């Protein structure tokens, strides 16, 4: 028997997933509050005891690997030149690497902006700007600014290759923690993710885990390998692409609603499907992640409220639901758990809004252009209309009796025909909350991870889908 244990140190919970490699299945899961502010091993031990309880005995693991979003996650600052170009490229790289992009700056940095990098305790700065051989003035200026103000965290240079040597000199002059990778936008509108991703991961392993007090756990487990969102992205990509002979699900979208954020992942190129559509703008990542920091079930409940129109709020009021009060209640009591029908209903309202708005920001959009020849369309972003599978994860979706209704709000909306949302995907739920664990496992045993996902992530019962489709 060969067993692996995957651990996810989340901001609130430490989640354990035990896998039997030969059976190709999960044998137990358990969780406990994360205790990183005191001693991260405490919560882990308690969760481990629960896991043994479930198994009815203590077992040994051949490998124990972990991902983490504890202690504020991986806080990143993305810097570029033009907002739609290198700034956006840098931002996408950070998100794909599993970062929380707390700061985004374009053009020349001001002293106030640099001060924010220091104040907000950013973990890694990604400094981009200029295509290869393009603008170097601004990145050189920005590197100087980071130096003058003594930004003391790892800084990755991911800009114009032509001035890499000059940047190196600036890093040396100010003794900055400089790292180098390929340009995130080597040519206009070309996105280059992999090299920057590698360096971010290296820094995560070498510095960040240590700095956040997570390293301690490595005396008991093998390694903390990835930021959690990056593990989830890896799982989504594997599930979509398949591995060797084992087929994947094809293009898919994944939604994770949490207390503070709503994450959307998509795998697929998302090119236009019609000939009268012209693709515009920066290239999209094949495996893409977006995070909405203003949309969540508890900490960000008031952000959800802000995205509602007055008409919506009024409609709910007529139905006897005071959404403003409900938002405040959730924000003020983040531990709140909906138990009665009414609260479950209200939670579902919040969840649907999170999904709808987060997906709107994730998917590509069409824009109509009138030409002397008739109408044509510009597409910016990914066309996810034909995505075959839509997967929900995160507490609210996993537990809600209205899960399919919630997921349905991701789909094509007659009132917004220019948003390229999934039209009629098969809806599935990650009932056992295993995606981050499977992303971790995929680094060692991709085939097993894939088979477990295919077994455990289940299609929502047909019945539920039909009733909701009518409503």
């Amino acid at each position, binding site marked *: 028997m060969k067993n692996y244990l995957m651990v996810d140190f989340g901001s609130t919970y430490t989640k354990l997933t035990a896998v039997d490699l030969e059976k190709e299945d999960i044998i137990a899961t358990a969780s406990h509050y994360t205790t990183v502010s005191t001693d991260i091993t405490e919560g882990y031990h308690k969760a481990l005891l629960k896991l043994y309880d479930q198994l009815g005995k203590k077992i040994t693991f051949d490998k124990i690997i972990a991902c983490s979003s504890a202690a504020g996650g991986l806080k990143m600052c993305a810097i570029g*030149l*033009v907002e*739609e*170009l*290198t700034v956006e490229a840098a931002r996408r790289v950070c998100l794909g690497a599993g970062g929380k992009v707390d700061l985004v700056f374009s*053009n020349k940095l001001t002293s106030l902006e640099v001060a924010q990098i220091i104040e907000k305790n950013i973990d890694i700065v990604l400094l981009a*700007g*200029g*295509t290869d*051989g*393009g*603008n*170097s*003035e601004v990145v050189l200026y920005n590197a100087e600014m980071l130096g003058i103000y003594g930004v003391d965290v790892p800084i990755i240079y991911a800009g114009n290759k032509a001035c890499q040597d000059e940047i190196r000199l600036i890093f040396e002059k100010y003794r900055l923690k400089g790292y180098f990778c390929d340009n995130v*936008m080597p*040519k*206009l509108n070309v996105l280059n993710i992999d090299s920057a991703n590698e360096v971010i991961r290296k820094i995560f392993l070498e510095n960040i885990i240590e700095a956040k007090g997570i390293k301690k756990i490595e005396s008991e487990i093998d390694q903390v390998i990835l930021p959690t969102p990056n593990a989830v992205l890896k799982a989504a990509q594997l599930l979509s692409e398949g591995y060797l002979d084992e087929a994947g699900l094809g293009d898919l979208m994944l939604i994770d609603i949490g207390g503070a954020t709503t994450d959307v992942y998509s795998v697929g190129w998302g090119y236009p499907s019609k000939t009268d559509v*012209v693709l*515009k703008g920066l290239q999209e990542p094949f495996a893409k992640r977006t995070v909405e920091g203003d949309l969540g079930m508890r900490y960000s409940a008031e952000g959800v409220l802000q995205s509602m129109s007055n008409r919506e709020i009024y409609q709910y009021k007529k139905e006897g639901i005071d959404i403003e009060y409900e938002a405040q209640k959730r924000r003020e009591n983040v531990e709140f758990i909906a138990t009665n029908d009414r609260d479950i209903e209200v939670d579902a309202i919040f969840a649907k809004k999170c999904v709808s708005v987060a997906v709107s920001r994730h998917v590509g959009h069409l824009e109509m*252009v*009138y*030409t*002397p*020849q008739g109408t*044509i369309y*510009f597409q910016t972003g990914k066309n996810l209309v034909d995505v075959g599978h839509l997967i929900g994860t995160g507490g609210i979706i996993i537990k809600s009796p209205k899960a399919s209704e919630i997921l349905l709000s991701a789909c094509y909306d007659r009132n917004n025909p220019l948003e390229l949302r999934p039209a009629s995907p098969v809806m599935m739920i990650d009932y056992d909350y295993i995606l981050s664990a499977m992303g971790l496992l995929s680094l060692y045993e991709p085939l097993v991870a894939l088979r477990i996902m295919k077994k455990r992530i289940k299609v929502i019962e047909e019945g539920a889908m039909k009733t909701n489709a009518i409503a």
Partner: protein
Amino acid sequence: MKTIVIGVIGADVHAVGNRIIEYTLTREGFNVVNIGVLSSQEDFINAAIETNASMILVSSLYGHGELDCRGMREKCIEAGIGNILLYVGGNIVVGKQDFKEVEKRFKDMGFNRVYPPGTPIEAVIPDIKKDLGML
């Protein structure tokens, strides 16, 4: 190597000339950044900023060039590349108009060089090299 951003402005889909311009300028030793047809003023300007271009060469074939090009110099100034060279050519206006008049209007809009219909790209290579200080 000097960088030139090229493209076809506005809702204009004439793609053939654009390809020929890319080919010709590349052969002449320029670094050509081609943003293609259906490009907005912002697309040209953003591309020029990131690639540190010395020139933006705008094509307009379908007759609405004057509308599409208006305000472009001001936007360049706003974006910090106010001194960039702006060229325009193709079939920049509709019908038979006195080209002197047309040229004046485009120059007033801040274009450095304005070419009448039928000017092939080869014919302007000397102008480009001169303006970029390569001769």
